[in-house]
């Protein structure tokens, strides 16, 4: 518990969390204030999809930075060595630190989007279940990239290295992963489409997007061909769950195996 409390105190005093939140608040408000042009009965869904497509650019990179810097500063302040020498093993430390990070990011995120929902009620008839799915999608995204950030903070030796890794991972999931898949696309056949599907949904951004769009009922899979049926061989929720578990496990594993107890300037 004192890890969570410590994380809160540190982040409240710092600027990183507030900067991240203010960007999300700014974006969501600007989209909402422009929403009267969407004043038809599905405008609520259009707004949520537009909002998601916008914040998806920011949440991953901000969570990567928050996670990475949080772990790295423990190295810089030598508190990591003290903790590991006295009481904790590295997995134990990482777990507690991660829980602290989750609480620091997720609670303000939920709080803001609860307030946002109240504001939205002035504009649209609100569909609560869709909003819950939207929120769940953002939380999944934040958790995955926070954990990746924690892994980066764990194995980085310097700040420069850490920033480089964070930007690379963001770039990879945003551009490179799909660019590789696009290059593979002409060779996809009915025989190998399931493997392609696994690679596609391994990208948490795609898994979350599909979960959101199908969960809200805006993306339909009616009249699918055999190829498409094979591509969507399980439910979007399961794809997201698998992607979530995979990246959390990989991030934890990488952090534990490759961590360095000290960081250089």
């Amino acid at each position: 518990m004192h890890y969570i409390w410590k994380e809160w105190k540190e982040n409240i005093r710092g600027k990183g969390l507030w900067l991240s939140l203010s960007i999300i608040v700014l974006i969501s408000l600007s989209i909402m204030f422009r929403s009267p042009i969407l004043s038809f009965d599905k405008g609520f869904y259009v707004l949520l999809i537009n909002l998601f497509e916008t914040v998806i650019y920011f949440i991953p990179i901000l969570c990567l930075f928050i996670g990475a810097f949080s772990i790295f500063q423990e190295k810089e302040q030598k508190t990591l060595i003290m903790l590991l020498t006295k009481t904790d093993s590295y997995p134990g430390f990482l777990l507690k630190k991660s829980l602290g990070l989750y609480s620091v990011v997720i609670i303000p995120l939920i709080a803001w989007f609860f307030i946002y929902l109240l504001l939205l009620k002035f504009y649209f008839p609100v569909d609560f279940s869709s909003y819950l799915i939207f929120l769940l999608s953002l939380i999944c995204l934040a958790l995955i990239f926070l954990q990746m950030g924690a892994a980066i903070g764990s194995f980085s030796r310097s700040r420069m290295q850490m920033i480089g890794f964070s930007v690379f991972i963001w770039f990879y999931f945003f551009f490179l992963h799909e660019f590789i898949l696009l290059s593979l696309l002409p060779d996809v056949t009915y025989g190998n489409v399931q493997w392609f599907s696994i690679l596609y949904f391994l990208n948490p951004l795609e898994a979350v997007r599909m979960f959101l769009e199908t969960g809200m009922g805006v993306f339909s899979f009616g009249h699918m061909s055999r190829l498409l049926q094979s591509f969507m061989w399980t439910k979007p929720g399961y794809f997201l769950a698998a992607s979530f578990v995979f990246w959390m496990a990989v991030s934890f594993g990488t952090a534990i195996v490759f961590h360095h107890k000290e960081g250089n300037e």
Partner: protein
Amino acid sequence: MEGSKKMKKVALILFVFSLLFWLNPEKKMAAENLQRAIDSMKAGAVLKLENKTYEGNLTIRKPITMIGAGKTVIKGDGKGNTISVKAPHVTLSRLTVAGSSMNRNSSEEYAAIKIFTNDNTVDHVTIRDSFHGVYLSQAHQNTIANNTIMGIDKGEVAGQGNGIQVYYAHDNLLVSNTIDGTRDGMFFDYASNNRIYNNHISNTRYGLHYMYSDENVFEKNIFTMNTGGAAIMNSNHIKLKNNQFIFNYGNQSFGLLLLQATDNEIEKNTFYMNQRGIYLDQATRNLFRRNKIVQNQIGVELWSSSNQQTFTENQITDNTLPAVTVAGQGEDNAWSKDGKGNDWGSAFPLTDLNQDGIGDFAVSYESSLHQLIEDQELTSFFLKSPALKIYEKMNSLLERNDVMFTDQHPLITRKGHPLRTAVIGALVLLAAWILLKGRKRLCITFGRNGKKI
């Protein structure tokens, strides 16, 4: 002896009555009573129903008006049409009609209200739990207005019918109806000269499905969250004006499909956030004028079999791909008319030195994606990806791109898209902040206990 005979008779009567009770006679009697009441009315009479459930099915053979009290329900027995209209000049109003047969193996397709005659009105009627909603079968000059038709859901295609089915029926007026979750919202089969205004159709397979039906007019209808907004097939001389095709967003979805459709006028419609805004296959001589084709994955998908299309004065902006021609270029497709092209948005920067609202040079769009779209249906999963731009750039460097369209007279963009402005604004703020404060400041900000260097 006499007494025992009487006793037997009484017992027999009681037995028969108990059987009637067991067979739920009040329902049957209610149906018969309402049917009898209808049959006994004079032509032109008005029948006012109470706020209760009447058991159907009913057949109306006289020109009468049947008005409910707002919560009046007419419930079919699930074995035929709930209400069959077989006389002209019948008006049905303020009713809920439910429970037609859902049987797909019968010779007849059933509906909540099936109209076989002309000059009838169905107004403020709610329809649910039925195969088709309203079925106009060789029925002309009817008015179907202000009705709400609820289907099962868009996932169910075969097991349910269409909201409004118009079959060999002409000169009908369909206005201000709301249709949700049926197979197709409105299905026109060999139906011409109908007017369709202000209807709102959502969560269906095709909001509008057209086969062999000519010279119909569609205005101010809204199609949202359907697999396809409107599918116009084998039909000619249709006017689509001021309609909204919004959020038809599924993998194979489109706002408007023209398939083997000729000489149609598509004017001042909005195509917003569809998988494809407009999808043309084997279509000829259609005119697209002053439409807003905005924020779709593909603005216009034009297959090579489509020829002589004219696009003029449209706003085709903020789409992932503004327009693609698939399987080769069609013949004589024009992207401008009378010196007026289309507004392609800020993605195509233009100068306008003589301030006439027309760009000083032609815009041309090249892409390599047409081949992928043609060969691989999974391409649509990548249309939202930022990687697409890199892919296009790479292929451009490798000279694998083909020209998708050339607009000789592009229109000057008036203003930017609000969402893009917001995103760019936030990005610029973030970049400026990082540049101003520097990397060291970034370190201090996120790891606020980091040592200042």
